[in-house]
């Protein structure tokens, strides 16, 4: 290969150097675009960087040597810049990597399933409970909890259950052994509802109170499709000056819409709980049929979801023993409670309550 491409350099001023080096740069760039395979790369390398006949070698031996002393430094800098430029082009050409055919040999079946790092699933009860708590937190409710083993006082007496009330019977309530000799109010049992935390909260905090209480409860129930000796509730309590029944309605209507969608309607029925008066059962319009009537709502268009009511003055009287500000003449409030399993069963289409407590991987995995 001859290097007639490298003319002798006549002008060593800036303009002359610009023109000479600029020309070589443009030329290298153009030639680099024609590189398409490994052989081309090698050819380009030899033409420009070859030790004996490479153009840069030529430039070095002909221009540098010919340069007058005062131009040598400027020329040297430009020479190095050109060399880096050409090396860069070569790197870029080399970085192009293997050929298409080489790549084709590396083809994989992208239709095989992806490898999955499986994550765990939160329990549907935890998930539902957290959703309910979040709805009420947004309404200004703090979160409270209480013990699962309670005294008769907190579970029944302070919640205004009369002595001899059927719920106090061991047929309905699981009790700790060896309580017979103790005063009734101190007897230990597994709380049958989260309501005792209402009293525990009021004893600690004067009004106003807004609290939502998620928790596990137990009853002496034989297990069937809809009953389990273990289940969960979320209880709520709101006490302040001038809390009225219409506030209870508004709060629960809002909460049900937040939980089940804004199209959901609520309606309230008189009911009976010892610790609230007036008491109500709340139904929501069926989330499956929108209220038209289906099998899930037994054609009624409504689903019963929770119990609630205005806090009974007798309950306030118990609270006032420790916090006199719970004077039923001055303050009022409402309480509500809902079964988490029932809501989760409805939301996720679960037919057997026992599935929540069986630890079946196949069941739990559906909630990942």
């Amino acid at each position, binding site marked *: 290969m001859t290097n007639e491409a490298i003319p002798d350099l006549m002008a060593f001023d800036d303009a002359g150097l610009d023109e000479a080096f600029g020309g070589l740069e443009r030329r290298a760039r153009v030639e680099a675009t024609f590189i398409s395979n490994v052989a081309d790369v090698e050819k380009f390398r030899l033409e420009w960087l070859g030790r004996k006949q490479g153009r840069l070698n030529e430039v070095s031996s002909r221009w540098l040597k010919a340069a007058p002393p005062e131009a040598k430094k400027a020329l040297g800098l430009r020479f190095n810049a050109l060399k880096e430029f050409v090396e860069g082009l070569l790197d870029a050409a080399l970085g192009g990597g293997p050929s298409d055919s080489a790549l084709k040999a590396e083809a994989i079946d992208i239709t095989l399933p992806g490898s999955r790092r499986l994550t*765990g*699933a939160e329990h549907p009860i935890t998930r539902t409970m957290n959703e309910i708590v979040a709805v009420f937190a947004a309404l200004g409710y703090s979160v409270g909890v209480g013990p699962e083993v309670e005294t008769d006082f907190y579970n029944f007496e302070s919640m205004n259950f009369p002595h001899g009330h059927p719920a106090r019977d061991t047929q309905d309530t699981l009790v700790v052994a060896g309580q017979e000799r103790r005063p009734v109010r101190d007897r230990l049992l597994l709380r049958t509802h989260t309501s005792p935390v209402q009293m525990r909260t009021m004893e600690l905090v004067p009004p106003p109170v807004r609290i939502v209480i998620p928790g596990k409860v137990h009853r002496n129930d034989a297990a069937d499709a809809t009953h389990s000796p*273990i289940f969960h509730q979320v209880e709520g309590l709101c006490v302040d000056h001038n809390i009225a029944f219409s506030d209870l*309605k508004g709060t629960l209507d809002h909460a049900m819409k937040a939980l089940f969608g804004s199209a959901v309607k609520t309606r309230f029925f008189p*009911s009976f709980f010892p610790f609230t*008066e007036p008491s109500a059962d709340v139904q929501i319009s069926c989330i499956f049929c929108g209220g038209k009537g289906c099998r899930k709502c037994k054609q009624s268009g409504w689903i019963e979801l929770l119990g609630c009511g205005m806090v009974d003055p007798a309950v306030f009287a118990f609270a006032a023993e420790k916090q006199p500000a719970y004077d039923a003449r001055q303050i009022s409030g409402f309480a509500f409670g809902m079964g988490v399993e029932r809501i989760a069963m409805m939301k996720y289409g679960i037919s057997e309550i026992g599935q929540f407590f069986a630890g*079946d*991987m*196949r069941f739990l995995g559906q909630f990942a």
Partner: protein
Amino acid sequence: MKIITKWLRAYLPQLAVDDAQLAEDLTLRGIAVEGIFSLGEGNGSVYEMDITTNRVDAMNHYGIAREAAAIYGLVLPALHFALPAPKPAAKPFSVQIEAQDACGRFTARVLRGVKIGESRDWFAGGEVASYFALLQQKTISNAVDATNYVWLAMGQPTHVFDLDKLEGGIIVRRARKGERLKTLDGVERALFEDDLVVADHKKAVGLAGVMGGWDTMITPETRNVLVEAAWFDPMAVRQTARRHGLHTDASHRFERGADFDAPPVASALVSAILLANSGWIEGELVDVRVAALEERTARRNPIALQLSEVDRILGATEDEEGITAATVETILTSLGCGLASQPPAMGQTFGQDLWLVTLPSWRLDLEREIDLIEEVARVYGYNRFASTLPAFGGGVRSLPWAEKETAVRAVLLAAGLHEAIGSSFCSAAEAALTAPQPGQVVPLGNPLSEEADVLRPSLVPGMLAMIAGNLNRDVGDVRLFELGTVFAGTTEKVEERMALAVGAVGSLPEQSALHPARQIEFYDVKGVVEQLLDRFELRAVYFDRFPREAGITPGWLHPYRAARAVADGVTVGWFGQLDPREATARKIKGAVLVGELYLDRVFKSALRKPVAHEISRYQPVHRDFSLVLNEGVAWERIDRALSDLHIPELVDWRVREVFRDARLGEGEYALLVGTTFQAQDRTLREEELQRFQARVVEAVGKAGARLRV
């Protein structure tokens, strides 16, 4: 309970709405109609009712007619049954109430010349045959049916005796020691001394308010009867019924409070039905009352009701007008209350409406002002109240450990464990095996079963049960955790703590078409525990194990594949492989990994706050050391030796491989340890590195390792 609308409409002929509308209106007022079934042309419907236990007064046809009248503002005529004039008696039938605390009223009427036979429709208001047919209630005899009819009509229990079997008059008293009574169900009963009985002068003839006696019952031969209609105290009846394991219609009503004023009316209806067939009345109605009990029931003191209180409790209505004084008066009057206006008391604002309300004898559930407010709300209609949201100005507090629980759960979920909720109970044997504090196990007084007779002291039994359940269902890959309460202490004082259990068997949480699954092993669980503890601000976490003889390792763990986790000097949990003997006992195959962490202890530490460190700009240098160790030398020794070097530039070291092969000496194994050297402020020079390496070799040598050459 069943209600037929034909009967209802007989009591309230002005009722204009159809059966479906009536059912809905009743339901919305708390008198729940659960189902409506048409009985065919002209027969109306039968309602299946579900009435809350506080409303026993409405568990009968007249009671529901009263509710309907209140809803529609109609007037319900009082019940009245005309009886023929009695023939005079030689002397009044003798009735004595000895148990003055338990029997408030006892009425007795003597009927003679009656004829026991089939029931018919006797007169208007006495349509026994046709109403029973609609209710699909079997007729038995005119006498038995008469008492049942009165029960269904007005909810008052009554009883008829064969008068000729009674010896002397009636005494209501407590049972005597050793007294016996054969009741109508044919059971011969030994009576308890506190039992309330209806007796004649010789013997008990009935458990008062619960069930009549066998020997004095009506037979086809009966000619003369005594009609009993009475009021018994709820507690006395409840205790008597409970002691004998009986629950009857009568006891149900008396236990919840009967109507003190109802007995004469009920007696009249029973008598009218019997006399419609044959017979006459002898003597006037004997009606013995106990004033103290009458005052507590039918003649209670009126209670004050204030309109402003109604507003305060109930709030806004959808109707602009709201609940007016007229609304309150109309509703309460229709329910049988008497309202007397009261002038405002001293200091009260002029114009405040205040009433004194007298209470109906059949509504013993009404005792306080709030009870009346509830009645107003109920009859007015809950769904006519507005939906308002109370103003709120406070802050919201979450549980102090909520954030920690969330952090723990996040680690576990990311590790591929599903959250489970197991039983709160276990057997005493499982409790003995797993209780972290031996002996602190709390038994239940009325356990669900023998296998669930104590409160769980540990989450491990439940976890093992769930693992076994999965394996039994042929689910071989199990990865579970449970966050829950465990119980300790005594039956006097139960302590509750929060614990975490993890359990796993089978393959890792990875699903790949290309790579074989790897079995979960001890180190996978240890990794989860480490990651979890890493989330907390702990100065020192280590894991240790004990020789079997030390008796420290929990019995459920494989003695040589178990570790204790210690954080800042406190035991925070145990984990490892389930003792294969326990696995066999539970029919579990395969190496099950299980552990329990005492979260109450872990949660005493704060969550670790991430702190960013300057990342060195200088090149790290990696050096591997191939070590040969005696089997008795654990990694921990090497690890500590490297740590004790305190070389700031030794920024990381880890085990890269553990292997055992034939080229090693007897009882030896090899570790490939990777180290990383890096300085914050300079590139490390070769001679520095040489010095560090030499120190590493010396340290591990002292710890019992030699370099493999």
